[in-house]
């Protein structure tokens, strides 16, 4: 039994997500000297998904890979690259999954249409109830 537990621990993703001994990349936790560029970089980081800790943005995550992704974003922003070009570079490698700002497409249109549809239903319901109340 103990051997089984040890094996399960060895094969579990928790053990696999062990952190390395190498210190964080230079720009992972250091802001860019230019505040405008840093603001741009931070805005982008908040809308990129961490690849190992899959519910967090790379701005929020402490994982090594998230730090390296922040360094990548800052490095490219400092080199004059546009935030959307960096996002596109990552989407090209990881798919739309990596961005919290999905593009409008065949599978994503309900994200935009549904709130509007629900609002319209709400207006209809509200209109019905107000009309009833107005009657004596």
């Amino acid at each position, binding site marked *: 039994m103990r051997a089984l537990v040890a094996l399960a621990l*060895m*094969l579990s993703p928790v*053990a*696999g*997500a*062990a*952190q*390395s*001994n*190498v210190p964080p*990349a*230079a720009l992972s936790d250091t802001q860019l000297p230019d505040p405008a560029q840093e603001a741009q970089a931070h805005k982008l980081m908040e809308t990129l998904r961490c*690849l*190992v800790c*899959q519910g967090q943005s790379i701005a929020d995550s402490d994982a*090594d*890979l998230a730090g*390296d*992704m922040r*360094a*990548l974003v800052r490095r490219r922003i400092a080199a004059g690259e546009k935030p959307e070009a960096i996002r596109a570079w*990552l989407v*090209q*490698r*990881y*798919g739309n*999954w*990596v961005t919290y700002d999905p593009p409008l497409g065949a599978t994503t249109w309900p994200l935009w249409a549904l709130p509007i549809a629900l609002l319209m239903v709400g207006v209809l319901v509200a209109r019905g109830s107000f009309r*009833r109340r107005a009657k004596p």
Partner: protein
Amino acid sequence: MTKTRIRWLLWVPLLAFLLFLGLVASGLLHPADRTIVSRLVGQKMPAIALPAASAMRPGLATGAATGTPRLVNIFASWCVPCAAEAPQLEALAKAGIVIDAVAIRDRREDVDRFLTRYGNPYRAIGSDVDSRVQLALGSSGVPETFVVDGRGIIRAQKIGEIRPEDVAELIATVRALR
């Protein structure tokens, strides 16, 4: 509003709740697949030039057509499943398959120790200290193994450790590319 209509409407919340319950149950019983597959499978391997990660092997320069199919193994000395897949890599190397490697966020002395302890099936090992190459490959963890053909096209990606039962299939895949 008529009485029958109200009576009918009374069931709507219950129906909505049951629908929600069904959605939750289906999500619990069939959790979504969270592995992130690289979109570069089927495309050219990005050009990589990495310094040596170990004193025992040269660094890694890829991207060009090498003529021979090979495996590119993404590993790290601090990664436990990487140690678990070492015997399988050894078996692949014994079968004559070329294995290049990228060591993620690693120190030279740690890589050397790892290779001495678990074996060294690699032809070249590049050191990727800030995961730059890992991100360029669309890889999201260790270990991962890419199958690259002689023209430098990524043909397959194995996410997670190579298990003993995967070895025969990997050998066949690489040999089929020759």
